[in-house]
């Protein structure tokens, strides 16, 4: 049986409103409480949630049109489309909310009262036996009840309290998206027009996350960061890898990746432009005559940067082995604090996740960070001809307080030149 979706009751003294934009198209499946369309008045923007699961059969009024309260704007065909059935069955027969904007909602409620109640199935959080019993007895939707137990679970007391309060949420949860001038009374009468199942989960940051957040804020506050870009044609590197990867793996005992090429290119470029390898300290610039390269590794707990110490003295195989070892230990949480501190320059690779182009943030007290990105085949021009090459955008974010544009740009060019002609890595030019 179709339901008419109507414009909700508008706040007092507002004659009409504008249908801003539909979030769903005709034919789309919708879930209960999903926002279908935004309706804008002078004071507030209201949401119009789907009263039940179903399919948006027909949109009667298009976005941009002016509408009045109670006007039918769409037709919804109720029906179970999503995987979760039980929530619908239960809510359909729960007590009708006090302030109703859609008579059809009430009609639906009444007609579904005859629905055989299915036993409450498990939602995200398993329900304990007493909670299951109460939910079934009172035909409740567990998703609507606030849980105060371990990890937010529902306790019997939570459910009893919910039942004693009449099974409704307090009126003040009527939410409006843009309270230009919040009209409290309007908000109350608007309660039923908006989703009553908004939950904010406040999760305290893990210590690691909090520390990362703090360091990044400090980095941003203390350095003057600027990012310069270039692009690298990796065809020669890839050719080298294809030709020698099996031999390399056999003789060196580790896969030949891209990182060793990049680390070597970076070290050479740092030698040529030493200020990029330096750190600032008050009014001094500290030049480091060693090259400890931090490599960003993503772990389940956050980003960490193990350090390749004296990377200038490491061979391709040593670099690859060291990185593989440190990355897996970092992910298992077994890396030591020493291995994560220090470092004169960082390399980060957003490309593993698909990033094409980005502006990395410096790891203080370093003065530069190289961002590697996804390798994409692109049409480029070589000697007047359009060819397809595997290209990577590279970015250097540098601290402009001590590194000038000239050094940063030339640094990046040096990396590009070395990688586009790998013989230069061998010859260190």
């Amino acid at each position, binding site marked *: 049986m179709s339901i008419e979706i109507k414009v909700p009751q508008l706040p007092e003294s507002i004659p009409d409103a504008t249908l801003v934009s539909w979030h769903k198209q005709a034919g789309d499946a919708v879930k209960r409480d999903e926002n279908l369309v935004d309706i804008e008045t002078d004071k507030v923007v209201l949401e119009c949630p789907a009263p039940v699961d179903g399919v948006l059969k027909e949109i009667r009024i298009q976005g941009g049109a002016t509408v009045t309260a109670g006007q039918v704007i769409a037709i919804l065909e109720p029906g179970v489309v999503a995987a979760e059935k039980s929530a619908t069955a239960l809510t359909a027969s729960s007590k009708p909310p006090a302030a109703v904007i859609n008579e059809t909602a009430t009609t639906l409620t009444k007609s579904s009262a005859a629905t055989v109640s299915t036993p409450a199935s498990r939602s995200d959080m398993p329900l304990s*036996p*007493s909670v299951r*019993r109460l939910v079934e007895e009172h035909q409740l939707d567990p998703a609507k009840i606030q849980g*105060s*137990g371990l990890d937010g679970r529902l306790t*019997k*007391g939570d459910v*009893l309290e919910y039942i004693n309060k009449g099974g409704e949420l307090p009126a003040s949860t009527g939410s409006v998206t843009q309270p230009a001038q919040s009209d409290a009374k309007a908000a109350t009468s608007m309660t039923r027009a908006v989703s009553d199942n908004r939950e904010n989960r406040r999760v305290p940051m*893990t210590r690691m996350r909090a520390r990362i957040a703090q360091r990044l804020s400090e980095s941003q506050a203390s350095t003057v960061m600027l990012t310069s870009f270039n692009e690298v044609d990796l065809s020669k590197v890839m050719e080298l890898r294809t030709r020698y990867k099996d031999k390399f793996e056999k003789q060196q005992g580790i896969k030949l990746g891209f990182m060793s090429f990049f680390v070597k290119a970076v070290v050479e470029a740092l030698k040529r432009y030493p200020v990029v390898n330096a750190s600032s300290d008050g009014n001094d610039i500290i030049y480091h005559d060693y090259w400890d390269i931090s490599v960003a590794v993503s772990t389940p707990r956050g980003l960490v940067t193990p350090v390749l110490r004296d990377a200038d003295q490491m061979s391709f195989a040593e670099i690859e082995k060291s990185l593989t070892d440190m990355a897996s230990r970092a992910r298992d949480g077994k890396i030591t*604090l020493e291995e994560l501190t220090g470092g004169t320059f960082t390399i980060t690779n957003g490309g593993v996740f698909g990033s094409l182009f980005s502006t990395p943030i410096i790891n203080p007290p370093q003065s530069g960070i190289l961002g590697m990105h996804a390798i994409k085949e692109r049409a480029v021009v070589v000697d007047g001809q359009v060819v397809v090459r595997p290209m990577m955008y590279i970015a250097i974010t540098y601290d402009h307080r001590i590194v000038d544009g000239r050094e940063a740009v030339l640094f990046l060019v040096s990396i590009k030149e070395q990688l586009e002609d790998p013989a230069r890595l061998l010859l260190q030019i």
Partner: protein
Amino acid sequence: MSQSFDVVVIGAGPAGYVCSIRAAQNGLKTACVDNWKSLDGKHAFGGTCLNAGCIPSKALLESSEMFHKTQHEFAAHGINVGNPHMDVAVMQARKAKIVSNLTGGIAALFKSNNVTGIRGTARLLKNGNVEVTAFDDPKQKEILEAKHIVLATGSEPVELKIAPFDRKDIVDSWGALEFANSPKRLGVIGGGVIGLELGSVWQRLGSQVTILEAMDNFLFMADQQIGQAAAREFKKQELDIRLGAKVTGTDKGKAGISVHYEDKDGKHDIVVDKLIVAVGRRPATSNLLEEGTGVKLDQRGFIQVDEECHTGIKNIWAIGDCVRGPMLAHKGSEEGVMVADLMAGKVAEMNYEVIPSIIYTWPEIAWVGKTEEELKKQGIKYKAGSFPFAANGRAKAMEAATGMVKILAHADTDEILGVHILGPMASEMIAEAVLAMEFRASAEDIQRTIHAHPTLSEAMHEASLAVDKHAIHAINR
């Protein structure tokens, strides 16, 4: 000579060694310093728990209870063994073997987890380093540098001036575990957990035991219904427990040790061959801190810490018996885990509300959460349900149908607020209650959970039904 670590833990008892292992598993370079000297002069990890407390006492309780059964229970089963005889030396040897097995186990765990175990006495210096005096040579000192320091020095028995320890006849709990034979007449000052357990051991092996408890209530910290039921059981076992008895002095003479005490009826004396003083334990912090470390002790010597066991001085933590809270091994261990996780930058916390307490007498006593008295005092409305083991089939088959399970639940929300057990295997059964309370379960949740039949755990099930006056296997009043 100086070594450098991420974490130095002072003390290798259940709090310290667990913290060390967890810290090492978290990737921190950890050392654990400990100075326990066994009776044979050798070093052993494991602290009081493994060497002079939890473990040896449970070994003796097991042996003595088994002996007790031969004399008092075997006949009921139709087993005739004549006149069984107890070889105390063999009992002690078994206990010693178990202890050495477990303390050696800790050394092995340290090794496999890369914890550097250091045998020596540690002291926190005001510059933040740890000074270690070698176990074998008091002149040999070394300095340890550490990013984090965890103080886990535990506790030691309180000594009474009126009954000073002489390590022979007037002994502390450790001494009481080492008797070579059961004393003919044994006095125990202190009717708490330790006094009761030790008194039980020797009473089962033939000693005439008198326990002098200063408080008027027996087991004042336990639920009184359970406490009184327990007192009746111990009386049946002829364990002489005298309440309200304040010891005023002792005299050693040829006939034995005279113990003078006063109660509401006046002054009394008893004469015993051995006297155990078990009036409590105090934190072992007297030589731990150099002046000026900034770490604060309260007036009883406990190291002051917040709810994360942080002392207030950066990166200095304290756990176990040397800080506030129940002096229980599992509490120390979990504090150790929490601190090891916090030091590694993880999120961690302790739930102090749901720590079980156990007394390993027979019948065992176990509880978690609030007592009826505490709920009354806090003005919390509650309902109570209890079920006697006398009506439990498994208990009867075990010839152990004594005691009860009692559950206290909130009158409105039905949330379980406390569970108290007197009876067989109470120490194991309490685990169900602890888990339930961690999940803030209601009595109804236990009602609706299937408990196997025939088991002792059914008594928990029936008690939960009794909360709502619906017990099936008992008359509901």
